[in-house]
Structures are given as structure tokens and as C-alpha cells.
């Protein structure tokens, strides 16, 4: 997939700047923090991505206006979306769909509404905007993305958006000068741990000119991480320790409040 996009980008670049294929814009980006530590008091944070558009060669004539689309994806997860239905008078989980290897976190930012940056075909091809982002579902033995009006897809995105794990910000990228921009990446308290990828695409005249990638990491830190790890890796010991804690608390109370 990525390979196709790159090939296509090259094709566009060649077709647009066919006369001088060597000369083009360069995109340079930098992220304010490459590691985010999540402690017990973590209530979400934001990190800043800076970037600049530069000419490849000094003689290259720059455009007047550029557009930027930043796609930040978190660790991939497989999730089940379930729908409740009424059966015999009670509401129970009935139909379900599995979303295979979709980003746990997906924020897409741009400097103006996506449909003004490029046409629908280009957006679809480059996954510009959540509507065009590939969210493959397991359907029978096939794994495929559905139409974007699919109720499971719509509600999956809605629930993820409510958790602030998915989001799109058509004004999330700000141009400070015609070539210098910044974007704020918002990480909610529930941001999953792992590696995040920031994919920055430069558009000009409705076509993608160049894209670069950057990455950062969200790391759980401190006591919570210790407890969560212990519960997962040493279930039996963790259970015994919890029971010991319960017995000690109960015993302590019966001694402190002894009345007879």
C-alpha cells in the first residue's frame, strides 16, 4: 500500500514538475517530545510538531501556497464493535463486527478543510481525513474496509471520537509563515501505550508533493505500570498479594475497633 502511494507520489511529482524532475520542495519536520511518560496524574497532554517547506535547490521557484495534512496513528489493535438489540424484552449484545489491525489512536489534522486541499479521489487514495481512512473489518473470511456510511463503521468512529482517541482537525495545522507550520497533537488520558507515527504530507495545487514520517512513544510509568504488569504477568502471585492485603486490612480493623 505504502509502496503504491510512494510510487504514485513520484508519478505526480514527475508529471507536475516534468520539466525539472530533480528540483522540488523539501519537507522538514520535528516533534517537541519523542517520549511521553504517563503517570497516575496524567490527564492528557499535547505535543507540538513543527515543519518547514524548503526548496530542494536554491534556484527552485516555490509556490505561493501549500497545504499540510498530518496523520498521527497509535499502536494497531483489533477491536470488536457490538450492537445491542432487543430480544425477549431485554437488551443484549447481538450483532458484532471485528475491526482488524486498526489504529488505537488516529488524529488527522490539516490547515484547511480536507475537500479544499485535494479532490475526493486524491483524498481517498492518500487516506486524507477519517472518512477516507482504511478501517478494515472482518467480514466472513474477508478483511476489507466498508463504505463509510456503514453503521458499524460510523459508530466505531463515533465511540472512538467520544474517547478522544480519534479526531480530525481541519484547522489543526497553522502556517506561521507561508512555509513554516506547526500542528498540535492532542493525547487524551486514555492514549494507549506504544509507538506513534506522525505522517506529514505536503500538498500543492491539489496534489501531494512529498511526505515525511516522524515518530514518538507513549510510555506508562510508575506504580500503575507496576500494578498492571504484575496483574498480567504474575496473576496468581498478584491474587495472593491482594488477598493478603484484604486479610491484613480486615484484621487491622478488628483490632483497632475491638469492643469486647
Amino acid at each position, binding site marked *: 500500500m505504502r509502496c503504491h502511494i510512494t510510487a504514485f507520489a513520484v508519478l505526480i511529482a514527475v508529471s507536475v514538475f516534468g520539466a525539472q524532475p530533480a528540483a522540488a520542495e523539501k519537507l522538514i519536520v520535528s516533534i517537541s517530545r519523542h517520549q511521553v511518560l504517563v503517570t497516575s*496524574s496524567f490527564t492528557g497532554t499535547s505535543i507540538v510538531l513543527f515543519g518547514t517547506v524548503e526548496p530542494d535547490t536554491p534556484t527552485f521557484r516555490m509556490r505561493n501556497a501549500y497545504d499540510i495534512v498530518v496523520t498521527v496513528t497509535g499502536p494497531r489493535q483489533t477491536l470488536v464493535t457490538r450492537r445491542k438489540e432487543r430480544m425477549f424484552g431485554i437488551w443484549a449484545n447481538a450483532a458484532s463486527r471485528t475491526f482488524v489491525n486498526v489504529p488505537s489512536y488516529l488524529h488527522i489534522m490539516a490547515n484547511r478543510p480536507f475537500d479544499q486541499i485535494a479532490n475526493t479521489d486524491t483524498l481517498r487514495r492518500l487516506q486524507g481525513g477519517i472518512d477516507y481512512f482504511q478501517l478494515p473489518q472482518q467480514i466472513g473470511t474477508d478483511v476489507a474496509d466498508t463504505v463509510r456510511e456503514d453503521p458499524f463503521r460510523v459508530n466505531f468512529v463515533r465511540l472512538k471520537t467520544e474517547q478522544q482517541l480519534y479526531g480530525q482537525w481541519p484547522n489543526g495545522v497553522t502556517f506561521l509563515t507561508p512555509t513554516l507550520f506547526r500542528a498540535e497533537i492532542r493525547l487524551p488520558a486514555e492514549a494507549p501505550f506504544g509507538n506513534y507515527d506522525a505522517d506529514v504530507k505536503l500538498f500543492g495545487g491539489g496534489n501531494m508533493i512529498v511526505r515525511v514520517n516522524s515518530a514518538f512513544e507513549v510510555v506508562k510509568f510508575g506504580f500503575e505500570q507496576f500494578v498492571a504488569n504484575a496483574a498480567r504477568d504474575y496473576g496468581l502471585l498478584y491474587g495472593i498479594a491482594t488477598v493478603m492485603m484484604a486479610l491484613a486490612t480486615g484484621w487491622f480493623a478488628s483490632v483497632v475497633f475491638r469492643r469486647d
Partner: protein
Amino acid sequence: MQIYLPIADLPVNIFLILGMGLAVGFISGMFGIGGGFLMTPLLIFVGIAPAVVVASVASHVAASSMSGAMAYWRRNAVDLALALMLLAGGILGTAAGVWLFTLLRSLDQLDLAIALSYVALLTVVGGLMINESVRAIIREQKGQPVTPRRAGAHTWVHGLPLKMRFKRSKIYVSAIPVWTIGFIIGFFGALMGIGGGFLLVPMLIYFLRVPTATVIGTSMVLTLITMASATVMHASTNHLVDAVLALILMIGGVVGAQFGARAGQNMRGERLRLLLGLLVFAVGLRFAYQVIVQPGDLYSIRLIGGM
């Protein structure tokens, strides 16, 4: 003050949880029960995943039973032989409950099963308790004497084989109903996150004719052991016990229980049972409402593989 629960994976207000522990502890001390049947629903209504709640409340009930059991032990009000026989069934029941819990969770029907179990169990038990205590109150007001239980009164339960003598409770009964009761308590305890004291005490009185002197102490010892083992089993199979949540609940619970016990001493037995019956019944209705009324959000997402 917000605190992050590592297993429930969500931030909660520490004082809210502590306050709930205190309130439930007060009620549990007042009625001499563990309070799991109140704690579990409260936490579910706050928004913690039912699976995590059930697993974590088990350890909270273990703590409150521990302090209760020790008080009764010092007063010599525990029939250890009876508790151990109940336990034989109880451990099996707990294992069966944890097994069903795991199975339902994989089928994505755990939340519904928990809710339905609450509806069925609490409305029936609550209804019976209200009925019984209202009759007792009416009888008392009409001035009719309560017909005392005759020492030799037998029911069909006493006709079963494998008879055993429990000296401290002064009863001579078959081991089969003892094991069965233990199994039922262990099973529902693990599945629903309840100690089962509010079920066990009436069952021991009505079916086994255990005298009031030993019934609560014995019930607490059984609850202590089944809930402690449920905690270990939940922790090792489902990895859902939230120790931070459990600790906050325990601290609130054991403190609240002390005040509740004092309040309960000043109330008449029938009134106390009527209040408890109403409370049990109301919680049952609240769960019924939850499954019958259309939920606000028909869709839900769950991560598969791990938490």
C-alpha cells in the same frame, strides 16, 4: 482527587470510591453481611467495567468478612466444622462460577448475565424478606406470640443420608444440603461479586436450622474463604482484580462497618430485616430497569486479546 485505577484503566475520584466503601460498610455492619450485592452495582453504575468490579469486590468482601469473622471468633460464635463442610461445596462452586464468568466474557454476554442474575436473585430474595418481616411485624402488633421452633422439628432435608453432627451449632444433618448450599454461595459469589451473606444466613436458618448464636459467625468465615479464593482465581485466570480499587473500598468498608454495627444494635430484628429486604429488592429493580429500558448507546467497543 483523581486516582488512576491500573486495571480498570480509568481515572476515578478517590473520595467517591472511599465514600461508597463507607456507605456500604455502614450497611454491611448494620445487617451483618458483606455488602457485595450493594458494592458491585454501585461501582458498575459509576462506570467501571462489570468484569473488573466483580473480580475486585471479591477482595473487598474478603476484608470485611475478615474483620467480622475475627469478632465472632473471639466470642466463640463460629462453628468451624460446619464452615469447613460448607467450604467443600463452596470451593467447587467458586471454581464453577469463575469458569462460567470466563466463558460468558468470551461470548460478550457477561454484563448481561451479571445484570440478569442480579434481577432474578435480588427481587426474589428481597421479596421473600419483605414478606416474612412484614408478617412478623403484623403478628407482633396483633399481639400473637411467635410460634417458637420446636427442637425436634424435622423437614425433608433431615431425611437425607450422610448425616453429620455439628456440635457447636447443636444440629445433626445430612452433608448433602450443606455441600449444596456451599456450592450455590460459592457459585453466585464468583459470578456476581457478592459474598452471599444475605443468602447464606437465611438458608442456614431455614434449611439446616442453625441457631442464631453461630449462624452469622459461621457465614462470615465461609464468605471470607470463598471470597479470598475467588480473588485468587479471578486474578490468575482473568487478570481483572484491581488492587488499587480494592484497597480504597476495603478501607472505607471496614471503617463504615464499625459505625453500622453500632447503629444496628439499636434496631428491632424485624424492622432491620424489612429494611434489608427493601434494599435488596430495590437493587434488583434497578438492574431490571437497566436491561429493559433501551440503553443510551447501542454500540460498544471492546479490545480483543488482553484487557
